[in-house]
Structure formats: structure tokens, C-alpha cells
């Protein structure tokens, strides 16, 4: 897949979480933005983790006690760093789009954060970005 790079496909990051944010705040952000992934950054915008629906789901299932605890209340006390993915695979803007697609597919990741040479977050690339890209391509091809 020569010619296309992550920078052509990625979504520039607008939504992030900070260390210390609660799971309840993260949930509101995910719900409001209709998104499934939120990068977690430090004060210098360096990537420190990734919170996904799957992390939250797994956390509820392994720790929640639906018979005795109210998950909504519990979430107001849990910081995101307790639940987030810490060992996150990243790509840079010049990674080929084909390589990013291969990583997403091989490891069944829903998204890959895009970082610069200082590990500062500049965007994310998701399966949905590739779907949108392909839709645009086929529409363009159909108009030719």
C-alpha cells in the first residue's frame, strides 16, 4: 500500500483524559463524543495510557458487585489510571497506512494512538477512520 500514511487517515485528537480523572468523567466523555477510545496524557501531552470500552467492561466484570454496589457511584471514585491500558502500541504520522491497518487487524486493537518523536499525542487512527477513508475512496471512484 504505497503512498498513503497515517497522517492521511488519522483523526487529530480533540478528546483526551488526564491522569487523575475519574472513570465517571471518562464515561461521560465517551458517551458525549460517541467514541470508544480515549487517550490518557500527562501535563506535557505525552501519552501514558489508553482507556477503551473494553477496559471498562473488563473492569466492571472483574470488580463490580451489581448486587451490592452502584456502578455509577463507584465510578466517581476510580481514577482512569487504575483501568486504562498502560502498554500501548503507537504509530507515528509517517507510518504507512497499510502498516497501521495490519497492526489493528493482527492485534485486534480498535485504535492506535499517533505520537511525535517526543511521545506527545497528535492523533489516533481507528478502524472507523479506515472505513470512512474507504467510503470516500469508492465514492470518488464512482464519480470518475
Amino acid at each position: 500500500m504505497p503512498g498513503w500514511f497515517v497522517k492521511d487517515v488519522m483523526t487529530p485528537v480533540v478528546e483526551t483524559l488526564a491522569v487523575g480523572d475519574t472513570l465517571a468523567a471518562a464515561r461521560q466523555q465517551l458517551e458525549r463524543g460517541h467514541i470508544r477510545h480515549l487517550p490518557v496524557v500527562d501535563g506535557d501531552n505525552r501519552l501514558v495510557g489508553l482507556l477503551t470500552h473494553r477496559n471498562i467492561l473488563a473492569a466492571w466484570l472483574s470488580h463490580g458487585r451489581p448486587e451490592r454496589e452502584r456502578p455509577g457511584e463507584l465510578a466517581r471514585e476510580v481514577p482512569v489510571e487504575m483501568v486504562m491500558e498502560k502498554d500501548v502500541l503507537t504509530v507515528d504520522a509517517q507510518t504507512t497506512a497499510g502498516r497501521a491497518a495490519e497492526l489493528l487487524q493482527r492485534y485486534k486493537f480498535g485504535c492506535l494512538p499517533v505520537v511525535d518523536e517526543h511521545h506527545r499525542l497528535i492523533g489516533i487512527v481507528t478502524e472507523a477512520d479506515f472505513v470512512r477513508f474507504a467510503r470516500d475512496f469508492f465514492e470518488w471512484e464512482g464519480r470518475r
Partner: protein
Amino acid sequence: MTATVREVMTPAPLVVAGPDDDLERAGQTMVWTRVRHMPVLQDGVLVGILSECDFIRARDSAGTGPARTVRSAMHSSVTWIGPDEPITSALSLMVSRNIGCLPVMSSGGIEGMLTTTDLLRQQLYTAFERGKSP
């Protein structure tokens, strides 16, 4: 010519749930099998989809009390597609409705699921391989 949905989808048998199944158990199944969406079938008929997002939303709003069922959390209004539709139609539907999966339905019932992962595996390469600007 682009591929049809049938050529790209994950065909049945699928990981499914029943509407009266325990919600926690369905959530565990999603984590173990690494699927993000489960078709909910009653007597073989599609009655809803349960997604990771639905499960989390249900747990967030839950009080204490008895176990909840899949029916209480699933969404029953489901966008679907036929197996012989071109992939381009599926791409348009998924982008315009911001959804990550489409049940594939025929007169015989559910034939499979088409997810963004399926598209990534196969069809998306076409756009890149042709190397043209969208």
C-alpha cells in the same frame, strides 16, 4: 467491481445471546471472545444487538438489585444489510449512521455479521492498493 457483503462478512455460526440471558454473563462472553457486538436471537429471529457500549451504559445506570437480562440493555432497532449488497453500500451505511457492525440478513434469517474488523481485513486494502486520491 467491489466485493459483496457475503464475501467479506463473518459468517454464522456467530457468538450470540438470548434476550433473557443474564447480562453479566453476556458481558463476560464479549470479553472472552473479544467481540464488540452480539446479535440477540429469540427462536432464531434477530431481536436486537448488544454492544460493549450498551452493556456499560446499563451498568452505569444500574442500582443494586437482581441480575438484569440482555433485553434490558440491548438496542432493538437494528440496521441490517443483505448478503448480496455491494460493500460500498455497507461502507456508506456504517459511516452515515456511525455504527461498527451490520447484521447480514436474508429470508432465512441471520447469515453473518459485517464489522469494521472484517472490512479492515479485506476490503479496505482495495482503496489503498489502487493508490488514488479519494
